[in-house]
């Protein structure tokens, strides 16, 4: 599928929609399934990084990290570091690999989400031992998978508004 060239304004609307979804959809999840709630803020960052220059994506990542750290002020600064890295690497990686395939984009979103979590955990240093193991090998991949699937749905729904061309 090749979509028409999107405008920046439409793309901004999609990003704003993702931010709003982050604060409205997650609370609707039952408590025990909260870990499976997609991270729409990270999704917005990764979708932005697909089209942005690495420097702009890093700055965007820094601000997303600032929001994230302010919402959960534990290991303040680790979210900024992690999101800056993920934003920069995502933009740089898209430039290098230039994948416009849906499955590759899914893998890209999954890797971005896992990478963010691992960096936050490493820099935060609050989880250790078995708790860290369960987080890294179970909860983080599960959440990343859900986030990637949510990203795929957003890409399919808004393919005309988002600057990626999804090859079927």
């Amino acid at each position, binding site marked *: 599928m090749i979509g028409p060239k999107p405008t920046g304004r439409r793309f901004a609307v999609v990003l704003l929609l993702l931010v709003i979804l982050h604060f409205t959809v997650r609370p609707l999840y039952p408590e025990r399934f909260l870990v499976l709630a997609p991270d729409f803020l990270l999704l917005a960052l990764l979708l932005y990084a697909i089209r942005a220059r690495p420097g*702009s994506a890093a700055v965007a990542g820094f601000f997303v990290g600032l929001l994230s750290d302010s919402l959960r002020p534990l290991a303040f600064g680790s979210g900024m570091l992690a999101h800056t890295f993920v934003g920069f690497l995502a933009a740089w990686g898209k430039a290098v690999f230039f994948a416009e395939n849906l499955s590759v984009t899914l893998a890209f979103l999954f890797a971005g989400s896992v990478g963010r979590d691992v960096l936050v955990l490493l820099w935060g240093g609050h989880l250790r031992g078995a708790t860290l193991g369960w987080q890294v090998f179970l909860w983080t991949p599960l959440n990343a998978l859900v986030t990637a699937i949510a990203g795929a749905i957003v890409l399919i729904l808004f393919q005309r508004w988002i600057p990626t061309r999804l090859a079927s």
Partner: protein
Amino acid sequence: MVERFASRRDTFAVVVCLALSLGARAAPDGLQEGIASSVRGSVLAPFLALQQQAELFRTSRTRYVAVTSERDSLALSAMLVAALREENDRLRDILSLSRRVGTAHVAADVLHQSGPLGGLVLLISAGRAQGVRPLAPVLAPLGLLGIVRSVDEHHSVVIAWTHPDFRASAMTPDGAVFGIVEPAARGDRATPLLRLSGVPYQQEVATGTLLLTAGFGGVYPRGIPLGRVLGVATEQAGWERTYYVQPAVQPAQASHVIVLLGAAVNLDTVFGAGQ
């Protein structure tokens, strides 16, 4: 097509962002909390209000039946309160005791956030304007959830019991065994546990025993449920035993909390402990 590989300007931007991030990580706690509080009170304020409305919507939609049932049970119990209060006042007068200290509290919603550290600290929808202060105990309907770390005008940050720094003095309902409860991890479980330490070797705690806050230290009132003993974790022969404890509350699943505002009081009767 625009050149999208990292240029010198991109490298400069990422280096500045990383330096700022490292600076934020190394900043004093007060400065970190000040920045976070400012962001929550400005940029994030409308989004947090939105999240609170969404939380209220879900609560009203999915919890109506449960809350109605709980209210009916409480209404039945409350019918006995007037008589008990009168009897209590009469006995206190006979013994020349002062009036019982009341338990002021405020209810709040938990605004869950994303990320791998989400279960260690929680944001709740009550703050300075509602009378919340730092170090106020935070309770979920089934027991202790944590303690308030910092307070904004309309929100507070709560350290849950899963946080590595959490400690609470604990006791069995009969007051026979005392110890310290702290977070623990057991390899075969995906959800975190508590650990009871400092129990003398000769005092054995049976599996399933309820643990309550002991009230030492003046932070947590006496009598709040912490959890139930799962079994022995470690033994130091002739010295002490530690026990795994199944927590009464899982922070990741808490949606509605009560923040205690008053002085530390005895909450044994509130939770019906020891019955």
